[in-house]
């Protein structure tokens, strides 16, 4: 690694740290805008008729009697040590709660990302260079899939595959069969976006002289696609991975709720409804960390897949 590229990587990492700090700060101060006494929220909301002594005790326990600046500093300090505070509603450490929910959501998101990539690659490979009809058909499929909202796709899949055909359970069981519909729900719309971007990249690559010269050397059309242009399809799609994972995590809110699947998304929705501030903050931070890391990673992978960028960096 040359000094130039090392400093570029350092700048990207510093940028990522800044974004995470800003997300934590915005979330902290934004959630202070919630009307009402947070101590009362801990004790079960306005209807709980908590005694002044109990309120005072909760204020002390959660540090709510301290000045805002002190609370903010304490929050940052705790974050650095991985402590996300205590859930108002469930009275357990948020880090434990989220730690238990994270694997299910990560499995769901990664499976959906993989399926979306496969679907998109298949569509892009089949439709490029196969004539005008195939191109417009592919374009319509991409457009429609990309427009499918998660909540509708999920209900339609349940109506078809659970209620009518009985192939998959409508509610997530722990096994693989219960994963199929949630993964498809998340993967299909994402595949629509990815396929459009991949096809664009492949068409551009096929129009390049190297594609023609490979054909002239006697490689088959499929051979050219698989050996040469697929790389060009992958570059923009890899660059989108951060965005893709973000939409998957946001989609998990809807999908986990519909399929009654335990996970970060359902935890977030419950926390939003109950105004459980520490849990909301925790999920927002976890998602931001995943998003920022993924964006960083996809930048680095893009440089690996794309030799032109290495040449610039070197």
């Amino acid at each position, binding site marked *: 690694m040359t000094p130039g590229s090392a400093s570029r990587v350092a700048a990207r990492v510093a940028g990522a740290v800044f*974004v995470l700090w*800003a997300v934590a700060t915005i979330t902290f101060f934004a959630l202070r805008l*919630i009307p009402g006494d947070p101590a009362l929220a801990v004790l079960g909301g306005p209807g709980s008729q908590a005694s002044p002594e109990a309120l005072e005790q909760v204020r002390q326990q959660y540090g709510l009697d301290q000045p805002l600046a002190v609370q903010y500093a304490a929050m940052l300090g705790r974050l650095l040590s991985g402590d996300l505070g205590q859930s108002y509603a469930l009275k357990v450490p948020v880090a434990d709660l989220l730690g238990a929910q994270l694997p299910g959501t990560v499995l769901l998101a990664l499976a959906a990302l993989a399926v979306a990539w496969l679907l998109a690659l298949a569509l892009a490979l089949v439709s490029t260079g196969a004539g005008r009809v195939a191109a*417009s058909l592919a374009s319509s499929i991409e457009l429609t899939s990309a427009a499918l909202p998660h*909540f509708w796709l999920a*209900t339609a899949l349940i109506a078809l595959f659970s209620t009518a055909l009985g192939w998959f359970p409508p509610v997530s069981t722990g096994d693989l069969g219960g994963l199929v519909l949630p993964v498809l729900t998340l993967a299909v719309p994402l595949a629509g976006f990815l396929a*459009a971007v991949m096809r664009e990249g492949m068409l551009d690559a096929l129009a390049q002289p190297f594609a023609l010269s490979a054909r002239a050397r006697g490689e088959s059309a499929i051979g050219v696609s698989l050996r040469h242009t697929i790389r060009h399809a992958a570059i923009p799609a890899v660059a989108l991975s951060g965005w893709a994972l973000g*939409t998957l995590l946001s989609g998990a809110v809807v999908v986990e709720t519909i399929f009654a699947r335990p996970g970060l998304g359902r935890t977030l929705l419950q926390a*939003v409804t109950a105004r459980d501030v520490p849990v909301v903050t925790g999920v927002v931070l976890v*998602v931001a960390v995943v998003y920022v890391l993924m964006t960083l990673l996809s930048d680095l992978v893009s440089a690996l897949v794309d030799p032109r960028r290495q040449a610039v960096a070197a």
Partner: protein
Amino acid sequence: MSELELRTVAVGARPRVATVRIGTVLAVAFALYLLLACLVPDAVAPQDPNQIAPRDAFSPPSPAHWFGTDESGRDVYSRVVFGTANSLLIGVAATASGLTLGLALAVLAAFGGRVFDFTVNRTIEVLFAFPGLLLALLVIVIAGPGPVTATLAVGLSTAPGYARILRGQLLAVRRSGYVEAARVLGHRPRRILGRHILPNALAPLLVLATLGIGQAIVWASALSFLGLGALPPTAEWGAMLSAGRPYLATAWWLTVFPGLMIVLTAVASTVLGRALTRVRAREGATQ
């Protein structure tokens, strides 16, 4: 990267693939149908959307009830038609608030000097770290659920995407030859801004708004579906979906048809947005 940017970027104004000519016609037809459903729902819907008929409850789709009936025997198609105005209003209002906020940020970045440009860019970057509905959910935690909050929350979530696109547009126009020429001719900055930069930079607003309305409707209905936006018994597509959810196993038509309207609206919005992009690209080429 935002969903909206993808919708615009992926188009790439590629005139050699003649795809959606038929699609454009269908999209225009569907948009006209939606407009009619907004303005004169009585003429489009076969029934009063709130007329109950307990004996006909949960009828599946039939010639008498195209989209079936709900738990009180109300005609789902009529409710979908009467819900159009609410759903479109939410979409338009969310898009308008998102565009306004995005435009304000973009103008600040493009004309406020280096410090503002840096600040706005970092702000956009940070807002992107609240992907999808996350920012909207945060707003709802603070302000509480409801249709107005949900609309503004969706607007806020779309603002960073708009801001980034518009900032690029403003900068490109500011550095263009004709602005340079106007400056050399000695026109005052305000005149250059008003006569040259803004009209050219803001021309794609219509395209952005068209593309954005579909997305805004989808996000707003997602919030309604989760019980955080418009609530039943309002005839609004997302609220209808949410109301039909408990009956998913027995009466799929309660959720599938209102959802289908959302899907068709989103597709039509993308198709029309792309058609407008092509028109603009062609105009740009002939100029």
